[in-house]
Structures are given as structure tokens and as C-alpha cells.
């Protein structure tokens, strides 16, 4: 066994994961809150008013990071789902299922902030434009995954079935992301680029990126927490959980 697979197995074993996650979690949460606070302060207080949109644009500091997270969470779920299906690793099943509700929440926030923003910008809460629609159906896909997971009795079988659905639904991701390029829509196109110059002023960019970082860390923290709970539920009868309960009691 080379070192890589060794660490893979080590990390993949529920007790180890549980131990590491318990230790990392509070730090992640604290970091996410701190970064989020700075980012929000930067966005809502420090960043200049937009000459066109006034203060309404400031919702961008919530909307865009959440939108990114909605997509990222799905990708994260799909990758874990793939591993869970092919190698039947319990940890990945649990991780995939843990990211679904978190992703759904981010997607929901995206939809809400988007339509709050849409009212002043486009004069309507909602239009049937390609990005908005595909984002809505992304939310439905999340609901489908969660619903399927809840509908099946056996936890591992449920996780596998829902993982399968998550993989089938991956086709929706490029549609959400590229819809603004493929169809000309009301929603604006990419303004932030990872490579090359962004079309956004630096004073607005840094709070945005900070918020994005904060949401990512938050996502990982809450996925870790959910996965931990999920593993304990799955392994309720196993020795390591029993020992944990004893340690808690004493």
C-alpha cells in the first residue's frame, strides 16, 4: 500500500474522520464567521455606492457568493456520489448526502436575493429567463435528491439511490453556469474572472471574494457537522460510536 492509498483509507474510516472533523469544525465555523463579518462590512459599508444602481447593488455580496456555492455544492455532491457509487465508500455516501441540504439552502438564498434584487433592477420579482429557470430547477433537483434519500428505509441504499440521481442531474450544472452565454438573457453575464481582468472595481471585488471564501468555509464546516451526525447514525451499533457515547457520558 503506498502512502496515498494509506491516507485515503485512514481518512475514509469513520472514526478517524469523526475525530478530525470534530477538531476542525469549530475553527472552520469561527473563520467563516470572521471572514463573513469582514466581507459584509466591506461590502455594505466600505464599498462605494454604484453610480447606476445606488445601494441596491450591495445585495451582490450575498447573492453571488451564494449562487457560486449552490453550484459548487452540487459539484461536490456529484463527485462524492460518483465515488460512493463506484467504490462504495461509506464516508462519501454520507458526504454527498450531507451537502444536499446545504446546497439547497444556498440555492434557495440565491433565488430569494436574486428576486429581491430583480424588483428594483428589472421591475419584476421573477422572469422566465434561462439562468433563473435553470437555477429554479437546480433547487428542484436538490429537493429530488433529498426526497429520494428520505423515502428509502435503508440508509445506505437510500444514499446510493440519491447519489445516482445526483449524478444524472449533473447535466443541469453547465446549463445554469453557461446559460447567460448560450442564450441572451436579462441576467447579467460573468463579471468576475479567475483568470484575466475582472470587470468589477477592486473596492467591490475584495469583499466579494472574501464573502465567497467565507461561504466556502461555512459550507465545509456544516457538511462536516452533518456528515459526522450521519456517520454516527449509520454506525450506531459500532464500537467506536459506543465508546464515544461512553466518553460523553463520563
Amino acid at each position, binding site marked *: 500500500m503506498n502512502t496515498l492509498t494509506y491516507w485515503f483509507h485512514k481518512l475514509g474510516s469513520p472514526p478517524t474522520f469523526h475525530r478530525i472533523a470534530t477538531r476542525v469544525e469549530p475553527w472552520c465555523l469561527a473563520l467563516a464567521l470572521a471572514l463573513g463579518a469582514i466581507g459584509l462590512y466591506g461590502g455594505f459599508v466600505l464599498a462605494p455606492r454604484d453610480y447606476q444602481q445606488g445601494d441596491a447593488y450591495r445585495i451582490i455580496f450575498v447573492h453571488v457568493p451564494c449562487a457560486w456555492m449552490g453550484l459548487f455544492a452540487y459539484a461536490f455532491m456529484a463527485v462524492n456520489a460518483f465515488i460512493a457509487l463506484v467504490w462504495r465508500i461509506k464516508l462519501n455516501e454520507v458526504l454527498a448526502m450531507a451537502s444536499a441540504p446545504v446546497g439547497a439552502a444556498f440555492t434557495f438564498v440565491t433565488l430569494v436575493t436574486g428576486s429581491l434584487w430583480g424588483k428594483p433592477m428589472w421591475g419584476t420579482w421573477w422572469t422566465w429567463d434561462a439562468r433563473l429557470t435553470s437555477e429554479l430547477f437546480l433547487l428542484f433537483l436538490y429537493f429530488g435528491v433529498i426526497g429520494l434519500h428520505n423515502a428509502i428505509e435503508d440508509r445506505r441504499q437510500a444514499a446510493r439511490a440519491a447519489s445516482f440521481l445526483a449524478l444524472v442531474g449533473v447535466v443541469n450544472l453547465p446549463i445554469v453556469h453557461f446559460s447567460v452565454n448560450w442564450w441572451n438573457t436579462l441576467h447579467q453575464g460573468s463579471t468576475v474572472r479567475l483568470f484575466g481582468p475582472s470587470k468589477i472595481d477592486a473596492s467591490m471585488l475584495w469583499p466579494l471574494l472574501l464573502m465567497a471564501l467565507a461561504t466556502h468555509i461555512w459550507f465545509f464546516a456544516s457538511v462536516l457537522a452533518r456528515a459526522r451526525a450521519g456517520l454516527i447514525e449509520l*454506525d450506531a*451499533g459500532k464500537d467506536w460510536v459506543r465508546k464515544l457515547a461512553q466518553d460523553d457520558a463520563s
Partner: protein
Amino acid sequence: MNDPAAHDRPPLLAARGLSFSRNEEPIFGPLDFALHAGEVVLMEGDNGAGKTTLLRVLAGLLAPSQGEIFLNGEPLTLARLSPQLALLSHQGGLKHDLTALENLRFAAGLHGQRRGLSPVSALAAVGLDGFGEAPVRQLSAGQKKRVALARVLLAPVGLWLLDEPYANLDRSGIELVNRLLERHAHEGGAALITSHGAYAYTSGTPRRIALRPDPAGAESQDDSIVEHTR
């Protein structure tokens, strides 16, 4: 076991360290056993002991949590499913809208048919001579069971997995099942059956295999597999 030549060939069915858990709760196992040609094994156990579950695992319908299953010496994986077994489960697998004969004809198409048997003769063999043209929906509980047995009989396979084949059958039906098992074993087949009835297949000498490992090493009366050899 009284035929040493049979042991040169790999057993029709073998399980090694086989166990199954639901939500990490063990249902049975770990189990080790082999089923050779010419054997009929009667699996007895209390209600809820895990007999149905074991049969479904052996048929490849449920993936075992641990351990391996071998059919004719080859490992059975979920992906490469057994071409060599016939399963009788509680539901019967019959289309209620089709007649008994149509059901058997379909089964013959799907699984092939045993040399010397046809849907018509299989139906006659289970004592349903005049019922070939009746939709299965109109048959009584025992008559449906007989049609399902005819389907098992028709399949050109060596291994039968029968879940409570005696339930709902009248006395002549019970004798019929025993006769069919006798002949199947005689022709080199093997069968694993579950039953609660005292009337169940009783030729040969019993051998027991515990469904759950016994901590004391002793073999318990409950949760056991009773095996009869020809």
C-alpha cells in the same frame, strides 16, 4: 454427502463468510455452507430469523454486507448475475392479467426450458390441467402457488431457491412439492427451501447450520439451517 464423486465438482452453491446487515444491524451471518448437486436443504428458523433475506441475497437481489457467494465455483457479483438459479418468492412473479399458460410461455422464453418439458406439461405436472386458459387473477391462493411452482420446474437450472413453497398448498400440493424436490435432486439438481411446516421435505438425514454464529459453539435449535441429503 453419500456420493463422494459429487464433491469433485464444485458445489452448486457455496457461501463463505456471508452476512447481511440492514442499517448496520446484522440480520444473519457470518455463514459458511455449501450445497452440492443432489442435495435438498431445508432452512428452518423462527419468524424474523432472516430466511427470506438469505434467499434474496443468494439470488443476487440483495448485495451481501460481507462475504462471498459462489455458483458452480464462480463468484457471484451483483454485476454478473446468476444464470443458473430459479427463485420462488412470496409474490410469485406471475402476471395476473395473463393466463397460466401465457405466463409459463413467457418464462420459457426468458429462462429457456427444461428438456422434455413444455409449458403445457409443466402445468399438468403441478395438477392444474384444466386451468391453463384461466387468467391467473381468478385463481385461488394455492392455485397461484402451483403456477409459480410450474415456472420453477420449467427453468433449465440446477439450483432452486424456494421461499415457503408449502404455504397455501393443500395436502396433495404438499406431496407434489416433495415429489418435485425428490426428482430434482435425483436428476442432479439442488434446492434450498424454507418452511415452517412439519410436513416439509423429510427424506434423508438432517444437518444443521446456524444462521447466526453461536458464541458457545453449540448449535441452537432456532435460527438454523436443516439439511437433508439424498
